[in-house]
């Protein structure tokens, strides 16, 4: 078990610490993060885009006072981009320098070439080597793991199951302090069960009205209270196909609500009005079809958002 500071001694303490850094975690998320730290298990966060999966990793790194290491997944990602790569240009330079210096023993020269200093650490290896203090493990964010190929799941499983990496030329590199791993997925692809089994699974829903309002107030303290309230109310309606009378291709996440509030705030709005809402629609809806749907119902939407309690 790790040494505890007061902030990470209980789920409630962790929630308070996260809140102090501007991230409002609910009971489930705080418990998940607490257990992830305590049990040294990766957190697997699923949820729609923009609900705060990536932001959690950043906030956790801040709470722990440690480094945030990010691995963005994409189709075709492989070991050379995720783990390590040999620094060939430097190896060649070394070879030339040794040659000029008159080195004779090729076996020794080869041993020198495959030294740790010629190894370029990519995010996974960096995360294993970054930790020194057990009370402040580095936070490794493996973002959008669903975008990588499914072979990559098996590869991650191997690294995450014992936090070690074996480099054929060097031997095994083991983490002195295992990092706190946060995996996020938007669920465009089902991630392999074996990988999920290693993790604590948490589904991040869109926040309710009260929490969304609290998040907006927290992150944008300069915005008018009425504006924040009306944006939060409108965002809730945008996610509800029944209230909207049609489904959006991409309902807005909290990130979009924040963008929208900030855009309106910069325009000097103290409350949500139809004109400014239409002009800033690009902050909240990112598809042409969504724009058409929303433009047709904007006044109705704003009116409902404005008059609701």
């Amino acid at each position, binding site marked *: 078990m790790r040494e505890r500071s007061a902030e990470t001694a209980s789920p409630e303490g962790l929630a308070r610490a996260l809140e102090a850094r501007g991230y409002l975690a609910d009971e489930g998320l705080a418990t998940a993060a607490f*257990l992830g730290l305590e049990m040294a298990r990766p957190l697997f966060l699923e949820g729609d885009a923009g609900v705060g999966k990536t932001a959690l990793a950043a906030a956790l790194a801040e709470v722990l006072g440690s480094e945030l290491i990010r691995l963005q997944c994409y189709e075709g990602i492989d070991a050379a981009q995720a783990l390590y790569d040999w620094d060939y240009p430097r190896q060649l330079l070394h070879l030339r320098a040794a040659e000029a210096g008159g080195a004779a023993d090729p076996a020794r020269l080869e041993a020198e070439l495959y030294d740790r200093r010629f190894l370029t650490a990519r995010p996974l290896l960096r995360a294993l080597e970054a930790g020194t203090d057990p009370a402040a493990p580095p936070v490794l964010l493996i973002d959008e793991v669903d975008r990588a*190929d499914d072979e990559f799941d098996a590869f991650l499983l191997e690294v995450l199951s014992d936090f070690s990496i074996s480099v054929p030329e060097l031997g095994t590199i083991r983490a002195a302090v295992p990092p706190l791993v946060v995996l996020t997925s938007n669920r465009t*692809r089902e991630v392999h069960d074996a990988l999920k*089994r290693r993790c604590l699974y948490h589904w991040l829903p869109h926040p309710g009205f009260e929490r969304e309002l609290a998040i907006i107030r927290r992150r944008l303290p300069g915005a008018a209270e009425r504006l924040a309230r009306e944006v939060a109310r409108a965002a809730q309606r945008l996610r509800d196909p029944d209230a909207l009378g049609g489904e959006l291709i991409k309902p807005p996440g909290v990130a979009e609500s924040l963008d929208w509030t900030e855009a309106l705030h910069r325009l000097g709005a103290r409350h949500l009005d139809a004109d400014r809402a239409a002009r800033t629609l690009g902050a909240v809806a990112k598809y042409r079809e969504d724009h058409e749907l929303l433009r047709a119902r904007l006044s109705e939407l704003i009116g409902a958002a404005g008059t609701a309690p």
Partner: protein
Amino acid sequence: MTLRPGPAADAANRPDAPDVVAAVAGFARVLRAAGVAADAGRVQALVAALDRLGAGDARRVYWAGRLTLCAGPGDLDRYDRCFAAYFGGRALRVPPSPPRPAARRAAAALAFALPPDGAGGRAGGATARSAVSEAEVLRTADIRRLGPEQRAQLYRLLAAMAAGRPTRPSRRRAPSRRGAVDPGRTLRAALRNGGETIRLRRRSRTERPRRVVLLLDVSGSMAPYAGALLRFGYALARSHPGHTEVFSVGTRLTRLTRALGGREPDAAMAAVSAAIPDWSGGTRLGGELKEFLDRYGRRGMARGATVVVCSDGWERGDAAPLGVQMARLSRLAHRVVWCNPHRGQAGYRPLAAGMRAALPYVDTFVAGHSLAALQELATVIIGGRRA
């Protein structure tokens, strides 16, 4: 509340003392019965989590269990109900499993009932044709309009058809003449030549066979095409051995891969007809697709595969579940191909509710009503362009 199971748990699950491990194991059993895959590893994780959180507080027990035992949004609802039932004392409600229709074996169904107008197969009414145009008619004629002799000939042609082998890029790279520079091999070669780089070594990605999964609808409305589609499956399995999976769907999912493995096409067809319990029954495609995904697809069979569904999309009952399952399938599979023989008819529009629900998740929509159309399907499967 403490970790004492409520009265809804059966006697075997109820420990005499509020022993955490026994209560957790009992809870996991209830969850498994409700369809949540709470295996031993996850239960161990829950015990470890409760060790850290304490088992006295119901909210903490709830979250510890939910975080460790669940694996997807679909599990959460079931988990909540089981939790309330097991620890709250309310009655446990488990969703009923879908009813299983009685298995009907009908080897005789291989001899298909022909539609009344299908005796001649000479579309256009011409009486004398050369052998060449005869072959062309056979190639393009709708299979259900073929006479018995032509049908037999078509089956022979289909079974002998050589399909191509679809491939996928592998993560491995191998030495190659073209491609990106391979620094490792270049460096090692330089080392052998006293540090002099004489020739750049290159490497490129290797290729691996890509799995093909065929789901063949053998229900009543597809009966005229089922024989031809099965032979198509046979031809595919033979030219792409070890990487082809064939299932029949109708009212029950049946795996035919092994039965299709025989050398002799007619023997393989006899084995298949014995294996399919529901020749010409009604269709419940959504449910069967779900069963396929739960039992095979998610474990890896559909992952990165080209999945071909051969069906007319006539769904008995609500078509919405089919849409949900097609969405799951499209997330798992590399490509989803739908083959609907009715699409070959002039003026076809996807009006069947099942077809409409499925189409948004289909990458390629082909016909497959004639030999030519099935050859086109084979091209689509290897990732080629349609003629």
